[in-house]
């Protein structure tokens, strides 16, 4: 509902709870945006105004900056080779030499966590790019199309959305096989309907808004109208969706890696590190703790930033 973006967020998407009585027969029944990209986005979305917990953004932004540096230039943060095994010092606890300890093969956990950021973040970002790009395109197309085409596309989104995301991703991997590129494809495809649905609903809201109608009275040609008033307002929630969606994608990536479908060993990736490390949990907590903390903090930071963006967006539209 509401979508406010969910509108849930709908955002927008105001209101679903909207009073049905007032809806003239011609109107779209009710914009119900139930599905939101990912777990994290669900709550704010469905709640409409909901921001959930929020905190000063300094810490999240700082953390994301460090993570970004780690992803782009891991050499800046660590000089140690993430693949260099040292069986003599396997499962050694944190020390001055190995801040985060070593894993079962004696590899430096800090270095692996830092180099793992590249895999985790880039897979997440690429998947979001794919999902948001295709989803937005389809969503806008549906929202602006004549009724029958919109119906067709919407039903298509509905159908794809009936497949649980992880299972859809697994289906893609079953066809393509494991690996970095295939994980991006799998997660990206699985999340397309989320973006498509939200953007479609948003397009609908904007298309029927008072200001678009007003712009018609200025005599704007349809393409100008769409470029000047519809698209910018439709795309407004995209940064919010993408930020929060990236958190979701990172969780999904780590999940697939955990199952062994992601980047193949020995490349460091947070999810696959966790998968290996859990066998040594009893003797070496640090092998689980640090990659786990990295995933969690990354997702929390992204969510907090996303919520702040959402608040700004909604503040502007109210």
């Amino acid at each position, binding site marked *: 509902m509401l979508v406010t973006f969910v509108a849930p967020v709908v955002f927008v998407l105001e209101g679903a709870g909207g009073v049905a009585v007032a809806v003239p027969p011609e109107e779209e029944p009710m914009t119900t945006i139930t*599905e939101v990209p990912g777990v994290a986005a669900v709550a704010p979305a469905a709640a409409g105004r909901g921001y959930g917990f929020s905190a000063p953004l300094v810490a999240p932004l700082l953390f994301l900056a460090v993570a970004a540096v780690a992803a782009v230039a891991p050499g800046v943060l660590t000089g140690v080779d993430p693949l260099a095994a040292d069986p003599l010092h396997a499962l050694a606890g944190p020390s001055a030499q190995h801040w985060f300890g070593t894993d079962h093969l004696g590899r430096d956990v800090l270095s692996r966590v830092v180099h793992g950021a590249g895999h985790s973040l880039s897979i997440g970002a690429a998947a979001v790019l794919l999902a948001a790009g295709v989803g937005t395109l389809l969503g806008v197309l549906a929202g602006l199309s004549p009724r029958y085409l919109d119906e067709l596309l919407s039903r298509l989104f509905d*159908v794809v959305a009936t497949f*649980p995301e*992880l299972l859809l991703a697994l289906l893609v991997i079953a066809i393509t096989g494991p690996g970095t590129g295939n994980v991006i494809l799998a997660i990206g495809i699985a999340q397309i309907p989320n973006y498509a649905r939200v953007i479609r609903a948003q397009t609908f809201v904007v298309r029927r808004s008072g200001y678009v109608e007003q712009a018609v009275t200025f005599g704007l040609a349809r393409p100008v109208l769409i470029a000047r008033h519809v698209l910018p307002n439709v795309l407004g929630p995209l940064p919010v969706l993408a930020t929060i969606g990236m958190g979701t994608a990172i969780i999904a990536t780590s999940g697939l890696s955990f199952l062994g479908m992601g980047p193949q060993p020995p490349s460091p990736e947070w999810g696959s590190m966790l998968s290996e490390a859990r066998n040594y949990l009893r003797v070496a907590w640090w092998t689980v703790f640090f990659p786990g903390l990295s*995933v969690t903090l990354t997702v929390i930071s992204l969510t907090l930033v996303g919520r702040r963006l959402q608040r700004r967006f909604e503040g502007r539209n109210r």
Partner: protein
Amino acid sequence: MSTLTLTRRRGLAAAGWLGPVVRRLGAGVAVLWAAATAAYLALMLVPGDTVDVLVGDGLDTPERRAQIIAEWGLDRSPLQQYGDYLLRLLQGDLGHSYILQRGVGEILSSQILPTVQLALTAALFGVVLALLLALSTAGRRSWLGGLAGLSELVVVSVPPFLIGILLLAVFSFTLGWFPVSGDRGLVSLVLPGLALGLQIAGVLGQVLREGLERALEEPFAVTARSRGITEWRLVARHALRHALLPAVTLTGWFTGYLLGGAIIVEAVFGRPGLGQVTVNAVTGKDMPLVMAVVLISALAYVTVSTIVDLAYLAIDPRLRRSR
């Protein structure tokens, strides 16, 4: 009031129930058919020879290829193939795993029970925790709400398998309260159920709390308070229903999450179930099996969504209008 309730029930059709119910059931069936078709098309559109795809990583013998061609009707026209496929599904025949050399239906039915148990346990944990969290913090002291919000944020930001690992570390390894793995009765359901259910509690708790808080600010809440109602009763009789509306729409998502999450959590806890079957099938490219799992999840999703839609009609009278 009892007289009112009686008449309400008698006038089911008149009150506008019939139309929406039929419409929603019809939509559910249509979506299922479309989902089956989509899965079929996906399989056929995979580049390469369909027979190769169906063989997967299994033994590739001429006999097996002949078996596949016969069973999938690959020597016939595409339309006939598709018709056969639908017909088989309708009869409950999910096909044959050429790697395990067993019927897919047989494999799944032997493994589905533990997964359903796990999902239901998780759903129960999630809903109960969410309700407790929301009811105890909505509209109360702000620090309590803040604390709840923070825990919800953390819980939804930790991958479920990590939650599972941490639970194992604390409750099994350190405290020894629960078995480490396997399926040994109800006790062994607790930790996996929690690992899977916590996320639901986090998301649902947040939605419920915000829904409650919003409802408590609505004009009808002021009116209700002006009648001398207690806050507790206001929440129970008025606000909760409003808060449930957005929460209920998430149920479809929860179903998908439970099915997907179960695969991962089963792997963490070494539980038998659909998870292991699926992971093995994906790794071995056992397409008939993977497709069957995907279709079963779609069926579960559609069933739950349809039930939710109907529940919606019960909660929100504004939707009960047939055109």
